């Protein structure tokens, strides 16, 4: 048999035991067997090593190197065994058409359309009742399954906990005094009493910046909102709600590290770069008699990213 003929695929069930297709693919099987044996032995040694490393609580990379190296080598050995020492083939298998015969198809369709369909067609009223029942069940079941998962949004997204006279505090709960921030400094503030709550952290978080009065554009109607150069803006980016956590002091830009939106602090935090569509909402500030900072009211707009109900 020429080599060319040996490469002609035949059916597995028809080959004789001495067919060259059932012989190993390797030219020198004994040598391959030795190489595979060595691979297995090293693999086993590594796996045993993993056991030992685990026993003595070795560092993770030793555990991983022995465990992974052992598995890897056992795998390589097994693949080589399959590739070089097992029947080299090629073999062929016939495909059987997936489709059934015409008669079987017709019988199947007839069973559904005639036997089943006839029964349902004749009982339209019952069918309608069953359908209505299932439909009503679906709607009713949606209440425990979906409705109970969370509260209705109502006005939640429109308000924060800031109100008239709320003191600004830092993360430790200390009130912020007139003399606390140098010009050009920045800190994150929360409504007093809420600095360690989920809502205080996630919704009410506010950036307090003190800037010099030069080069500062006061927005119309906000003349009294930033006493002594203190400006407070919502820390929630109007793009996707990440905290606007970076402050570029020289350019006086607040930067959101998520998608690089930048807000111009000297001009009402209007975005001048990136995907954020709206300025950061501003919190109007005032001082109490002792010089501690308070909010005059809530933010001038809903904080954070856009949503359907927002005007």
């Amino acid at each position: 048999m020429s080599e060319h003929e040996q490469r002609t695929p035949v059916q597995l069930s028809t080959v004789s035991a001495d067919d060259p297709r059932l012989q190993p693919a390797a030219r020198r099987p004994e040598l391959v067997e030795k190489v595979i044996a060595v691979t297995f032995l090293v693999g086993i040694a590594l796996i045993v090593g993993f056991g030992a490393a685990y026993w003595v609580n070795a560092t993770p990379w030793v555990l991983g190197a022995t465990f992974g190296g052992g598995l890897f080598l056992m795998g390589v050995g097994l693949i080589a065994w399959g590739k070089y020492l097992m029947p080299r083939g090629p073999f062929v298998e016939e495909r059987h058409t997936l489709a059934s015969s015409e008669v079987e198809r017709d019988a199947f369709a007839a069973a559904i359309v005639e036997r089943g369909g006839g029964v349902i067609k004749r009982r339209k009223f019952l069918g309608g009742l069953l359908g209505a029942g299932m439909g009503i069940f679906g709607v009713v079941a949606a209440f425990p399954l979906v409705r109970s998962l969370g509260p209705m949004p109502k006005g939640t997204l429109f308000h924060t906990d800031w109100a008239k006279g709320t003191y600004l505090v830092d993360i430790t709960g200390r009130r912020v005094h007139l003399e606390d921030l140098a010009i050009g400094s920045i800190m994150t503030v929360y409504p007093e009493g809420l600095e360690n709550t989920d809502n205080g952290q996630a919704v009410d978080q506010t950036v307090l910046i003190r800037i010099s009065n030069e080069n500062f554009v006061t927005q119309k109607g906000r003349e009294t909102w930033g006493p002594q150069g203190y400006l407070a803006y919502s820390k929630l980016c109007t793009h996707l709600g990440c905290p606007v956590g970076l402050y570029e002091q020289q350019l006086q830009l607040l930067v959101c590290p998520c998608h690089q939106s930048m807000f111009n602090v000297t001009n009402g935090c209007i975005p001048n770069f990136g995907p954020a569509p709206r300025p950061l909402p501003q919190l109007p500030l005032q001082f109490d008699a002792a010089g501690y900072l308070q909010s005059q009211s809530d933010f001038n707009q809903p904080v954070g990213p856009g949503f359907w109900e927002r005007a």
Partner: protein
Amino acid sequence: MSQTVNTKRAQREKSGPYGKLGHALNELDDRMGVAKGGRSFLDKIFPDHWSFMLGEIALYSFVVVLATGVFLTLYYVPSQALTTYTGSYLPLYGQRVTEAFASTVNLSFAVRAGLLMRQMHHWSCNIFIGAIVVHMGRVFFTGAFRKPRETNWVIGTTLLILAIVNGFLGYSLPDDLVSGTGIRIAYSIILSIPVVGTYVAFFLFGGNFPGTSILPRFFILHVLIIPLIILGLVGAHMVLLVRQKHTQFPGKGKTENNVVGTPMYPVFMAKTTGFMFVVAGATALLGAFAQINPIWQFGPYTASRISYAVQPDWYMGFLDGALRIFPSWSFHSFGHTIPLEVTIPAVIFPGILFNLVMAWPAIERKFTKDNEMHNLLDRPSNRPKRTSAGVAVAVLCSMLFIASSTDVIANFFHLSLNSVLWAMRILCIVMPVLAYPVTYRICREMQGFAGAGKRKTTNIVTRTAEGEYVATPAPVYVDDLAHEHELDALPVPTYVVDAEDAVPAGEGGVRRVPR
């Protein structure tokens, strides 16, 4: 004594020529009728082509992800309750953190092999999704999705989506600073859906961000519900594969009505089991030597804190890139807001992309009007339009993926962020548009080029005693003999432009297509 021997012999004779195992198999067949189906399963033929291994990588990394994931569930606590960290990692000692964060740090440092298992879990998730994508590319470019395999294409695409979703959920579970920011972004993306977004977000999270129950809900989705669906669909994928049999590349003796290759038992079984060990071993080596997601360096999630260089796992990169480069086009009118700067890149774009992918077999059938059964694969160059469309989509996704690193690129190359942003905006539009005609041209060139994609036969150069050099062609590779008729076995693509002018297969089996 002789009595015993005789009994044994009698028993041996009773159990037939295949001994005790044969006897056991007979007993099993009596009860369950396994012989016929079992034999045809053992004889099942698998085509030998390296590209069929890509799906195996996906399958076996799923096995690794399941095994390591089970290990992690033994130690992870899905709770947002605050606790004081008192474990062995000193920089965090005494900090107020959630149970979820503390338990993840503990399972990394205090549980033996815990860090290895966690890193293997994360790596194998990334490999799983990567392998699915590459496997899909193989199926797409060779036309393996055509009738009768459209259903399996849809199942596969669903698996990709589920894998991405579950990857994101798992990435969120440690409650570290980076993943918490990811959840915040996901919440805002849900909010951006017109009309129902607010309700969906509130119901899913149990209220306004961060809600009351993200981690327990993400946990049960991540470890039970979605894996169960994935497992079921993987099963269906395999059952359909066995039922419909493999596709194969055209070649000697290979027709639409047969499969040529090696049998399930023992050859394929040995190779594939070995390959499973190789995949698991390689993942373990990555887990050992390549650090991934060191949450103790990021610190616990606090809603008002953030780190710079916030980037998701690779499979979310294309969405993050789209969000970065899309302009700030918010729609405000009629008392409503549609945050198009979020809705378009993060909801509508992936929606269109995945629907297009799912519907591709139907779309192609509509254009080619080809309703035949196809078991022989296409050479991508012989289907230039499909190949070009696929390359264009792949290029778009790659560009968006690069765009998710605008800040890193600007920083690394000392460029202005603005130039990088605009460069990526332009590249995302220009590159896919360019990719189509360029790929198309390359495909057409390859169609007219004899032996494209084939190995060249070498010359053996010998020096004679007189010092003369003689070059004689080396014998043809045995493997190439098997492929020698590959090209003339291809059906003429019906929808290639000018196909009717195409010259039929000529000398050497090459069909020349006029330019």
